[in-house]
């Protein structure tokens, strides 16, 4: 009789006695006034087999009773729910989370090792702020949010997980309880389905977890935007922009990924083309906006632009040598044309003749870079920001426009 839980306290100091379980919103259920039953040292942890304080509660009407399955130390080590063993932050299996975040932990699995490991981990946990998960290599808030996890994670609690189990008598065709049966009278899943064979240890250690495999397979088939082979393509197609989308709104968003060469809006087809100056900026933008960008409550469709031969995108030129680009500011050029220094496009004083060199695109606007200049370029042609005819150079971005900050363009006045 001296061995009952209440009378014998020998070696009890290391047993867990908690006041509240660590649970995910799904396991807690939708009732904000949930009542729980607490049993001190009610069962052994399914992972570390030490006694812990179990909690039992009903997560809502027509749901089955749930109870905590693993101890809080084990739950904190992996930052998981004590009942469903899914990640507390994303609600995903440990295997998926660890793969996505590249977490490698070495939680011991053999008996003595496990005891020693848990003992050390507990020491660490109590040394840090208790209750903060992730002390022993688990994921804390320090990890950057993973795109993959955000996509795979559910946005709302999944209460169907709390449904009663399927009535085994009904499956055999001999349930006599009929309507009163609290178990589900439904066809069971196919036993050959890998999802039918799950176990708690595999879930915890993140090894051949069928649910995780299913999720990873789904992740592999998620729509992706592959950058085209042709490295000269720096244009993104933006679809479903509606009729009232302004260029400014697009520019405001897309400018964050890099300098924009041009934005063309085709309002008839409700789409736009955003051309970047560099390929890397375009790739960055494609990655950052694909399936994510929402402007004016519209989810915009992002695709890569087609190759230059098929699309006539302003700002690019087609010559017999292939796709040619306008000179790009900031990029080194071969050599300035001697004429360039002689032409004074702004009617500036001769002393500042070197001034246009940082802005090489103010060079003769009507011929491509490598082609010889036309004999008589028209220097007084006013520069129009925005869209020019093909082959004509424009101002790449507002900061290049000298008139923008109040400078007086003398060519227009004269």
């Amino acid at each position, binding site marked *: 009789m001296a061995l009952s839980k209440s009378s014998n306290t020998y070696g009890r100091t290391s047993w867990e006695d908690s006041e509240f379980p660590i649970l995910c919103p799904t396991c807690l259920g939708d009732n904000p006034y949930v*009542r729980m*039953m607490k049993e001190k040292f009610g069962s052994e942890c399914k992972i570390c087999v030490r006694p812990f304080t179990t909690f039992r509660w009903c997560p809502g*009407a027509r749901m089955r009773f749930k109870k905590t399955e693993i101890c809080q130390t084990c739950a904190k080590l992996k930052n998981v729910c004590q009942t469903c063993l899914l990640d507390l932050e994303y609600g995903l299996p440990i295997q998926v989370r660890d793969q996505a975040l590249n977490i490698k932990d070495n939680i011991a699995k053999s008996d003595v090792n496990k005891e020693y490991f848990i003992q050390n981990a507990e020491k660490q946990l109590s040394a840090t702020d208790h209750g903060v998960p992730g002390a022993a290599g688990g994921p804390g808030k320090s990890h950057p949010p993973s795109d993959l996890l955000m996509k795979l994670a559910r946005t709302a609690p999944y209460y169907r997980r709390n449904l009663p189990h399927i009535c085994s008598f009904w499956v055999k065709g001999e349930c*006599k309880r009929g*309507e*009163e049966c609290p178990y589900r009278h439904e066809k069971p899943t196919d036993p050959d389905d890998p999802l039918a064979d799950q176990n708690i240890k595999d879930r915890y250690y993140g090894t051949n977890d069928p649910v995780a495999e299913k999720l990873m397979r789904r992740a592999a088939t998620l729509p992706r935007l592959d950058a085209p082979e042709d490295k000269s393509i720096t244009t993104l197609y933006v679809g479903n922009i509606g009729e009232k989308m302004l260029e400014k709104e697009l520019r405001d968003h897309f400018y964050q990924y890099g300098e924009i060469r041009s934005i063309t809006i085709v309002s008839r087809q409700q789409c736009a083309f955003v051309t970047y100056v560099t390929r890397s900026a375009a790739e960055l933008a494609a990655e950052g906006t694909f399936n994510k960008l929402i402007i004016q409550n519209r989810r915009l469709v992002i695709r890569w632009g087609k190759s230059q031969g098929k699309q006539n995108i302003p700002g690019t030129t087609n010559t017999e040598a292939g796709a040619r680009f306008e000179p790009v500011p900031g990029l080194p050029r071969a050599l300035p044309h001697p004429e360039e220094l002689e032409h004074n496009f702004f009617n500036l004083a001769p002393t500042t003749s070197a001034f246009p060199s940082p802005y090489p695109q103010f060079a003769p606007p009507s011929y491509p870079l490598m082609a010889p200049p036309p004999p008589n370029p028209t220097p007084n042609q006013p520069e129009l920001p925005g869209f020019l005819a093909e082959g004509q150079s424009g101002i790449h971005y507002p900061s290049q426009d000298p008139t923008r900050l109040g400078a007086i363009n003398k060519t227009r006045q004269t």
Partner: protein
Amino acid sequence: MPKVKRSKKPPPEGWELIEPTLEELEAKMREAETDPHEGKRKVEALWPIFKIHHQRSRYIFDLFYKRKAISRELYDYCLKEHIADSSLIAKWKKQGYENLCCLRCIQTRDTNFGTNCICRVPKAKMEEGKIVECVHCGCRGCSG
């Protein structure tokens, strides 16, 4: 039903009228007692006992209070001989407990949260279409 007669006195008048029904109920109780438990759930085993016990007490209670068919002496005799359950009848006299199924169902100390049995919840307050059988006596609702 008493196994032995406790008093030496002969039963009061009118006993012969109710005796056959009581005999019949006792036979049913015997049968329920000897019924095999195979195929039943653990909690189900005692349900018929509670049901017949309820029926027997209800019979005496109705005869005396509702139909006024038996005398006070016979009623007292039945209570004394434990043919009818006096504490159950005491509850039936209270408002809201007119149809109480058994005494275990109102024993709040036996429950986790100090509540009554599910069969004590009025039908109107229960969610639509929910059918319950309480674990104590298999009652499907005894409160309005």
